[in-house]
């Protein structure tokens, strides 16, 4: 292993950062899978709920609203990860690399 890699491997901040980032990524992935599964489950198992109107005077159904919102949700959750990873994790990585390669 090159010396810079060996230094990073021994740096406790590296192990911390990787586990913090992995926990975050796994948690967000589980949220995404849960939301998508719930959407499909309700549609297939409870079609009555899926096609119910949100109120008597409107043609909007819960299913249609959910179909629209899940698109927006996917966008927002990629934003959440990108913000934290680019704003918090990457500067930390850069300082670990800077120290290991100096």
């Amino acid at each position, binding site marked *: 292993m090159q010396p810079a890699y060996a230094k990073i491997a021994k740096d406790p901040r590296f192990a911390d950062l990787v586990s913090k980032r992995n926990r975050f*990524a796994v948690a967000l992935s589980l949220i995404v899978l849960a939301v998508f599964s719930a959407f499909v489950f309700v549609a297939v198992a409870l079609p009555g709920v899926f*096609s119910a109107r949100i109120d008597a005077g409107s043609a909007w159904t819960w*299913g249609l609203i959910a179909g*629209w919102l899940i698109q927006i949700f996917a966008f927002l959750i990629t*934003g959440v990860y*990108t913000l934290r990873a680019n704003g918090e994790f990457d500067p930390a990585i850069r300082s670990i690399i800077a120290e290991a390669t100096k």
Partner: protein
Amino acid sequence: MKRFNLLLASGLSGLMFSTGAFAAGEAISGAVEKQPINVTAIIMFLVFVAGTLGLTYWAASRTRSTSDFYTAGGGITGFQNGMAIAGDFMSAASFLGISGMIFGTGVDGLFYAAGFTIGWPLILFMIAERLRNLGRFTFADITSYRLDQTRIRSLSAFGALSVVLFYLVAQMVGAGKLIQLLFGLDYAYAVVLVGVLMVLYVTFGGMLATTWVQITKAILLLLGCTVMVGLALAYFGFNPSALIQSAIDNHPRKEAMLQPSATLADPLNAVSLGLALMCGAAGLPHILMRFFTVPDAVAARKSVFYATGFIAYFYILTITIGLAAVTIIGTNPAFFDAAGKLIGGGNMAAVHLAKALGGDAFLGFISAVAFATILAVVSGLALAGASAVSHDLYANVIMKGKATGAQEMRVSRIATFAIGALGIVLGLAFENQNIAFMVGLAFGVAASVNFPVLFLSIFWKNVTSRGAFIGGFLGLISAIAFVVLGPTVWVSLLHHEKPIFPYEQYALFSMTIAFVSIWFFSVTDKSARAAEDKAGFPEQFIRSETGLGAAAASDH
């Protein structure tokens, strides 16, 4: 009259074919009726071609090194790359297919739209930045990072080439049929035109031209859809609730359109389809290579963020277009033939809507954009295929990394030319064949060969060359076997009574075979090479997590 299923014109949504939801029997199955020549559409398309050739001319002056050719020198920004990734996703198939599904069946279209979008957050959380940190030009750079160059790189290059060829043929046939329907021109013209333009973009402009063609098309498509939704909302007095109520009243299934149809109810097929869509996307070489065009992990994340935004916006528009078409097209007899079927087939709802709302000029615009979409996708495919030949097979496997940049470039250009010629020949040969299964195969190979090897080589320290090679190979065999023995080919095409393999969607099975056999043949591997493979993991891990050493990727 046998109708062409436009889904073929596909991007990622190819698997929809084999779900039955899109009348798989009719898919790409035979001749379509040539329509009268549409002058507006042809003029608009020629303007697009002139513009993109101009782009290629500009890109050609900036494409000198191998890094320029494969990855646009790593100088694409996160926003531009996001737009290009979204462009790859926003295919003619999703546009016409999902709106057509809402038009014909109802809310089923929502599930496909959600399934396509929801894979992107997962790609971001799990692999986007690691791809950028580990790879240079092709995804085989990653799979063979610490594993045996000869075997694993060959396997990945072969996986990439199979996906490219299956997909390319499907696109070529789709282009030919689409141009008959939308432009009123001959099939052969379309196939040759697509082949020639694709070779021009890629050989002269490399990744830079390919990316900008994709970005241009993405902007035009989003613009076209936005205008269409605006006009549709105006039709209903800007009252979305009225639009929905009217769609329910005029839909052939009435209130039942608000609930999923029976085709979605089989859980095994549904899970299998979901897996193929998510994991297949993460195994398509022309999508994966986009992550090497940005300078670093920060830009790679931004690309996915922007891409997901554009894709989400696009699907919201597409769903609305489908709902609006139920009323505006569904109640207008002018759009139906004597037998009461929608002219041009069920996937033409969005195209008819363009005519109903914006007249011939808007119809011409949307037709030109649909055709431009195919052109943009095939260019990406040709580039991915050429990279597999020149960078993986030639430079690394045959020349053992000793080829000069100039030699590698020459091979990549010859390869692009050969892929273009092969695409044209096969496109012409398959004109009247039902080749829907080819799209299923492309996704199957991506999900069962490319994805498992890529995923495990990044994350699992104990994977060995032997395990990855045997497992990837078994994934390949099983994907092909399940397609041939399944309902699509064995029954629909070969006219046997019953399929030997009963499921239309097979990814769950072939992926399990690939993952389990990679695991088994890795843990039982006691060779010296296995020890070497495992010893390489710590360094690879640090690079994949930090990007240290990856900066060299954009140097020449």
